[in-house]
């Protein structure tokens, strides 16, 4: 098919008169059975490069894409044009997915979008074998490479599949961000017949700015002040989950419609927030990097980072979510040179578990054919660490995954090579180098967009004309006593909420007096608990009571209970007694342990923590609980499993309401 004929079809099917030259270059190659890696910025029209061939090829085109929201939008718009498109994903009902699979098998679809993790789903694997497949598309192809910003182990199987397909079978890999190194890695993995085609990366409508600050308070002040001037909606990216909570509350305090988003939220809440954001019900979402892959909103006007990203690719990818509709947008990075490198460095250090932990997992998978959760319990490591280790072991061929039905088992390879730890050192060195590139970016005097594009493999010597350097405008944070006072007031009245509500128990969300690591509360608790300094000091009591009043107002409780201690003697009992006396509620010592528990902190994974406390609590006089509202007190809230276990137990005894009140919640939490 020549370009002229293709453009007639294009007009008929999609309503566009012409292809961009680069689009046609890609399409032409695909139609003649070639394999292409297409690196082109967001908003260019990469999708047309596979959507159009999909309508022309005999059979169904499979698009692997990790972005469910993006899938949804593209499918809808193609269906509107009468193109036979559908998506299979975990958000849909089983029947709906099965229906789509059947249509694909009957050759009734031109294009099917699926999530990469489907390649690990036995049902899909067997279903796909019955399809007549015309072309494979790998969206977000940078996920193939560990040198990319978001390596995903489940892309490995797509790569394997592509390698095993006939060479004359068209394959398109697309990404908006790939450094030359990532590009080479993708080609090395997929095969040398993958032809790279690279577009320009310059995002001419995004103005880049760096603001240097001296403290967290300055970040809050500057953020608060700039909100009046910035067009909305926008996203504020933070480095930690606790910071999403603090910054979102700070913006709310200033009267801005905002909310926190992070990996700690349950899937329903996340979906609700995403949808509200799409519908412009929030002006600002404050999020960790958990938000992004699932969101495709074209009118985001600013992206502010309160924490320096790990690498220029991360940064380009994250701010790239702004201004997709072509309107002017801002990308602002707040940077505190004194402390801000600690977090990414810790992340780089901690991204690979120790050698000893790898060996622990290896001996576990040698002992029996196990699934992931069984491995986690067997080795007592954090879920995330076990997942990283298993992915690495699979990557190096030490174990193989076997999927049957919905379960995945890890099969040790009897001919396993020794695990190669030297790969980690290389990876670490590369990550450190990328972080130093980010520091270079912060300290830049020349065009910021030009610097990033060049680093990402685009042609050098850009001049965007709209970054702070090009405009000759360094942004500084002037002192502002009014705002400083506001921040102080806010912090004094900010208390972390404990989200423990579920439909199964009568637990309600509770409150903590502070985050453990953020104020001096943590060290005060530590001194008393482990340093033998006696009861918790009165100022902790006062702050806890203020948290109580802010959260519960004048609400009253029938009974105060406290979590029976594992190792800290009467500290919590005495503290709960003082709270109860001050508030004027009766207190009971009746909640006890039926069997001893280990301190939760020795267990690394949520699964083991849950097991440690399951069924361990008892309250003799059931009649004292039935129909009562209960205030449940503890010193530290970490994973929340203890509170949830007691909440469930008391619910079963007939308690009407159980509200947790603690002195501090940890920053990281489990998982």
């Amino acid at each position, binding site marked *: 098919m020549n370009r002229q004929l293709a453009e007639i079809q294009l007009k008929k099917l999609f309503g566009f008169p012409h292809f961009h030259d680069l689009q046609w270059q890609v399409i032409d190659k695909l139609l003649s059975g070639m394999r292409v890696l297409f690196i082109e910025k967001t908003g260019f029209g990469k999708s047309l490069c596979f959507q159009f061939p999909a309508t022309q090829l005999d059979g169904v085109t499979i698009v692997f894409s990790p972005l469910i929201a993006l899938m949804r939008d593209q499918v809808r718009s193609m269906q509107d044009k009468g193109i036979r498109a559908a998506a299979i994903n975990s958000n849909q009902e089983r029947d709906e997915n099965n229906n789509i699979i059947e249509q694909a098998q009957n050759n009734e679809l031109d294009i099917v979008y699926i999530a990469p993790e489907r390649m690990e789903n036995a049902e899909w*694997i*067997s279903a*796909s*074998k*019955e*399809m*007549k*497949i015309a072309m494979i598309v790998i969206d977000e192809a940078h996920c193939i490479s560990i040198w990319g910003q978001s390596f995903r182990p489940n892309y490995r*199987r797509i790569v*394997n*599949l592509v*390698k*095993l*397909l*006939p*060479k*004359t*079978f068209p394959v398109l890999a697309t990404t908006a961000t790939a450094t030359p190194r990532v590009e080479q890695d993708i080609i090395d993995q997929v*095969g040398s017949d993958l032809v790279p085609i690279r577009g320009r990366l310059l995002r001419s409508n995004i103005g880049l700015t760096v603001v240097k600050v001296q403290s967290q308070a300055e970040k809050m002040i500057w953020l608060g002040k700039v909100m009046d001037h910035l067009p909305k909606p926008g996203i504020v990216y933070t480095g930690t989950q606790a910071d999403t909570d603090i910054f979102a509350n700070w913006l709310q305090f200033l009267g801005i419609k905002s909310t926190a988003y992070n990996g700690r939220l349950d899937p329903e809440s996340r979906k609700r927030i995403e949808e509200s954001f799409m519908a412009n019900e929030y002006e600002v979402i404050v999020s960790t990097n958990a938000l992004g892959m699932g969101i495709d909103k074209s009118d985001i006007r600013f992206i502010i980072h309160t924490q320096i990203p790990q690498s220029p690719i991360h940064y380009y990818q994250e701010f790239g979510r702004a201004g997709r509709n072509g309107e002017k947008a801002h990308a602002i990075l707040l940077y505190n040179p004194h402390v801000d490198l600690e977090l990414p460095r810790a992340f780089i250090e901690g991204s690979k578990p120790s050698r000893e932990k790898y060996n622990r997992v290896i001996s576990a998978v*040698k002992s*029996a*054919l196990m699934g992931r959760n069984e491995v986690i319990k067997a080795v007592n490591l954090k879920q995330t660490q076990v997942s990283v280790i298993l992915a690495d072991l699979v990557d190096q*061929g030490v*174990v*193989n*995954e*076997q*999927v*049957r039905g919905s379960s995945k088992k890890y*099969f*040790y*390879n*009897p*001919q396993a090579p020794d695990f190669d730890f030297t790969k980690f050192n290389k990876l670490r060195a590369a990550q450190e180098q990328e972080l130093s590139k980010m520091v270079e970016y912060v300290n830049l005097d020349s065009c910021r967009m030009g610097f990033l594009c060049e680093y990402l493999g685009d042609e050098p010597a850009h001049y965007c004309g709209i970054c702070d350097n090009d405009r000759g405008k360094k942004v500084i944070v002037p002192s502002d006593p009014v705002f400083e006072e506001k921040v102080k007031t806010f912090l004094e009245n900010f208390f972390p909420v404990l989200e423990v509500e579920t439909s199964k128990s009568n637990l309600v969300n509770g409150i903590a007096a502070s985050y453990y690591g953020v104020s001096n509360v943590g060290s005060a608790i530590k001194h008393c608990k482990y340093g033998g300094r006696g009861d918790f000091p009165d100022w902790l009591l006062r702050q806890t009571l203020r948290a109580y009043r802010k959260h519960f107002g004048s609400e009253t409780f029938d009974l105060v209970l406290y979590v029976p201690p594992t190792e800290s003697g009467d500290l919590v009992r005495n503290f709960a007694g003082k709270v109860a006396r001050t508030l004027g509620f009766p207190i009971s010592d009746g909640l006890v342990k039926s069997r001893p528990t280990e301190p939760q902190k020795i267990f690394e994974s949520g699964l083991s923590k849950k097991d440690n406390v399951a069924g361990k609590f008892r309250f003799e006089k059931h009649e004292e609980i039935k129909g009562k509202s209960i205030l449940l007190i503890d010193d530290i809230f970490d994973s929340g499993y203890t509170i949830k276990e007691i909440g469930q137990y008391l619910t079963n005894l007939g308690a009407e309401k159980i509200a947790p009140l603690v002195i501090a919640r940890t920053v990281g939490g489990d998982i």
Partner: protein
Amino acid sequence: MKEAAEYTYWIAIAHLPKWTTDRINRLIVQIVHDKKMSLEEFFNLNAQGWTEIFSLTAKEIADLEFTKKDLPRLAFIAEQLQSEGFDLIPLNSPEYPTELKENLKVKSSPPLLYVKGRKGLLKEDAVAIVGSRKAGQKALDFTDHVAKKSVKESKVIVSGFAKGVDKQALDSTLEANGKSIIVLPQGILTFQSGFKKYYQPIINGDVLVLSTFFPKAGWDVGLAMARNAYIYGLAKEIYVAESDSKGGTWEGAMDGLKRKRSVYVRFPEKKEKNANLSLINLGGIAVDDWGEKIQDQSPANEIKKNGIDESISSDQEELTLEQKILAFLTKGPFTAKEITIGLKLDWDTKKVTTFLKKNPNVKMIEGKPTKFSRTDATTLTLF
């Protein structure tokens, strides 16, 4: 296999629908050996290329066209196999067991092996212990003894993962810390419960699971019969614990005898109702309950005592006749007449010709006059 990309094509060619193993293997030899092509290059040819280079028939080309369209689907299966750590060993791989190739020849060597476990086991001396699913205690004890004896001699025990003798062979081997090859009567992807049960011995390198069938094929009586040949083929020595006068064990043993394999048959007690004695009469080597050769046993006398009819003994004669002919053919190809004269046979030339045509170890060379040669003598280096 060095080139993982070839996996898909090997699966395609190994299971060409309704093609005989012989035909498939000859085509593979032609592609890989004669034309020095990769399977990928072969599949990239069109009908014209297949006709011109490989002289394929229209029917064969239609089959290949069909399979070619099926390649993406086979790629998914290849990917699953690879991802789940199964190894594919094609006919031309140095990892392909020599014993199997020598025993089954082009005619019936499976073109592609699917395995899980330590592949090194395929290179070690192997003993097959075979017998009925409903074997009696005598046979099971015999199996136990032979398995443990073979383990002591550092031999690998091959069995078929059926009830009775097969299961006993595997369990006794593992009990004695020996090594075993399980030859599946099904596709390797349908063996999940077995992988769970024998996980430890597999990952320790003591058990290798092997299948020759399409990976997703479920258990089937036809496959179970077919796999017996592979069990015999993998082993240097074959021990028959208990055989009926028909069925897989019998046919496998007969096949082995025809191929002049060492088939050791447990000498049965008088009251036993099985065909062990018939096998011994047909050339099986009688062994006692411990698998030791019975030295002073004259099978013929014993048979006469037991009243087995003598018609079988003509088979016996043929076996030795075959040996004579094969030995003669090692000198080169000859016509039927030359063989008759050379060996001073009291058959007429026509009977010799018929005999030669039926024999799997003898190959006919077209031409005038028609000559015969040994299959293995002219077998290409692939074999």
